[in-house]
């Protein structure tokens, strides 16, 4: 018999906590290993991310604060493949929450949370400049009595120069459709998703409570988000704070406007497109159709689906807090994705998430000999408006 050299300490209290934090899901896993096979990290690394093993640690109440814990992008590919649909990303986030309690987190993440605390955004940008991107756009201050929707821009599209173009394009589209909308400007509170995705649930709850209170005071009922991450967190994690509002992702709203004949595209675009389903819109919130409806309404474009599309959509690598961590080149999912985009026959890769936009564009730039352009759907649609 083989001698056992390593012993694992089983902690009953930890086991109970993890059971609670994961909503019981951790007990449902029967260790088939489909998750490890499905995880995109297996595409970019020799050794796949040992998802099954992490699930086992969680099941047994074994502490795990290894670096692989922070690789997870929470893309949900594992959950979609799991025969029991275990919420595996939630298990990862629960293990992360324990890691925070022990101050054993990936370098760079405390800075991200401190930035949210002192600056109201995870990007270490000044709070007084949140609305600077809109300085020349003359956006009206949100008034529930007058405005159909609140435009919720979110931190990334407010501060990242590339993503700001998406917000600006969306404003053009809303105006072209005659939508009466308002904006909270510098007072726009952070949705808190960054805290939730890196596993700091208590801090997320604090942020959410405050944001919900601001929305309540402002009389927000219907809000349109630029980022699927903000959309996901408002839709699925704000229930304890705001039962009566309707968050909607901008692609869904544009689809609605198109259906109502409020938004019309006059300009034909001679482009060959493919579309990246953002994990947080598609797989996690089951929204595959609305963006495709918008694309279908744009005259002149030819559309191709990439390999690994729809529920098998390949993550860009930005979720789960990875936008604030360094992913070494050669290990980026987005490098594979842009190759798939080119292979599909497209010359333009369209997406609907600021993280996807930034990650994919970075990868497209590095793709040798390629002229693939990466665009956000709002930017594309804005091009199709009559001048």
């Amino acid at each position: 018999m083989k001698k056992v050299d390593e012993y694992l300490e089983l902690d009953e209290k930890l086991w109970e906590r993890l059971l609670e934090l994961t909503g019981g899901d951790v007990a449902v896993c029967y260790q088939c290993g489909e998750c490890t096979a499905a995880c995109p990290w297996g595409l970019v690394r020799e050794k796949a991310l040992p998802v099954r093993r992490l699930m086992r640690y969680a099941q047994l109440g074994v502490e795990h604060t290894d670096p692989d814990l922070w690789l997870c992008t929470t893309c949900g590919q594992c959950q979609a493949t799991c025969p029991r649909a275990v919420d595996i990303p939630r298990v990862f986030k629960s293990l992360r929450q324990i890691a925070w309690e022990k101050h054993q987190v990936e370098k760079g993440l405390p800075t991200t949370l401190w930035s949210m605390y002192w600056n109201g955004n995870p990007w270490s940008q000044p709070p007084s400049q949140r609305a600077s991107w809109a300085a020349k756009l003359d956006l009206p201050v949100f008034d529930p009595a007058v405005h159909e929707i609140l435009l919720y821009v979110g931190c990334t599209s407010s501060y990242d120069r590339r993503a700001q173009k998406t917000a600006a394009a969306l404003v053009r589209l809303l105006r072209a459709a005659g939508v009466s909308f308002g904006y909270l400007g510098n007072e726009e509170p952070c949705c808190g998703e960054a805290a939730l995705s890196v596993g700091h649930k208590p801090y997320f709850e604090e942020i959410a409570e405050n944001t919900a209170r601001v929305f309540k005071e402002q009389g927000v009922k219907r809000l349109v988000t630029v980022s699927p991450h903000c959309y996901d967190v408002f839709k699925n994690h704000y229930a304890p704070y705001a039962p009566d509002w309707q968050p909607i992702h901008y692609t869904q709203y544009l689809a609605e406007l198109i259906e109502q004949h409020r938004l019309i595209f006059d300009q034909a675009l001679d482009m060959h497109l493919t579309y990246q389903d953002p994990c947080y819109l598609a797989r996690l919130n089951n929204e595959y159709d609305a963006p495709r409806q918008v694309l279908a309404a744009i005259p002149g474009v030819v559309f191709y689906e990439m390999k690994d599309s729809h529920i098998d959509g390949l993550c860009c690598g930005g979720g789960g807090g990875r936008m604030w961590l360094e992913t070494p080149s050669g290990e980026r999912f987005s490098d594979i994705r842009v190759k798939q985009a080119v292979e599909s026959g497209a010359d333009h890769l369209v997406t609907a998430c600021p993280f996807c936009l930034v990650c994919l564009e970075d990868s497209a730039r590095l793709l040798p000999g390629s002229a693939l352009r990466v665009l956000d759907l709002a930017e594309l649609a804005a091009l199709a408006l009559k001048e």
Partner: protein
Amino acid sequence: MAASLYQPEDQSTEVWVFLEHQDDLFENISLELLGKGRQLADELGWQLTGLLLGSRVSKLADQAIAHQADRVWMVEHPLLERFTVDAYAHAAYQSILKGKPGIFLLGATHDGRDLAARLAVRLRTGLNADCTDLRIDPSTGVMISEVSGFGGGVLALIEMQHHRPQMATVRPGVFPILKEAPDHVGEKIPFPVQIQQEMIRTRVIERSVSASIDLTQTPVLVAGGRGVAADLAQLQELAEMLGGEVGATRPLVDMGIIDRERQIGQTGVTCSPKIAICCGISGAFHFIVGVEKAGTVIAINSDPEAPIFDNADYCVIGDAQKILPALAAALKRDTEGVRG
């Protein structure tokens, strides 16, 4: 109001300047201080005195005089061979109590700041930090210091009426170095001090100084992005010509073309060069963060929509790989024309 150890009425009409040196050479800041000190002294009709601490400083004292010091106090002691705050504060304190200068300037270098801050408290006088300008108020004869605060957003003018010496640390690189005047005559005054080993409370156990890459201190940054990936040599040539360093964006580091130590940006180095020349860099904000503090930013990129142009002082829309050789040639021409 607590008084300084000596009053304005007791001051000697001298501007004193602390002269930092290493391996028998003055640090640039010392020469800058002599230059500015000369100007202030002339305006006031005062003398300019250099305070020179070390183990053997006679040759340096001659140099100080050649740089227009009227006097040099040579404070020599074996325990002053290397800078230690305890020994230097003690020696400087003794000197100042004896000499009672009206103004005492030091460089805002690490050693200068450490020394000045301790000394000012010991002398119960004021200290203006990291000054970017110094003037004399014509009506009062008092020195006015210009400093910046709040991340550089606010400029303040500071003075002290009743306390002496009026102390200030001066930001290196602000004041010019005056040309040497080899015929200038001055006095070398040896000032002996007593220093015991026990006074020096800190002990150096290990010291390691290497010629490692430190982009944070470079006065000139030549940074390259994907647009110049094919030709790093151009960047290196330009950097060498201008006495600077080469930096790069993440893609170049990823491609293995350049060391990670040279990556500029949010997950790399943040530097504050006088000038940053950004070639073939699109300017995503995680890069911009690394050069935000640069004095002047020049951007060369073939994409007119590149976000770098929003963050540059001078924008050139063009192919960096073609412009760089032309720029190098123009710079060579300039140097050749300015001989003699």
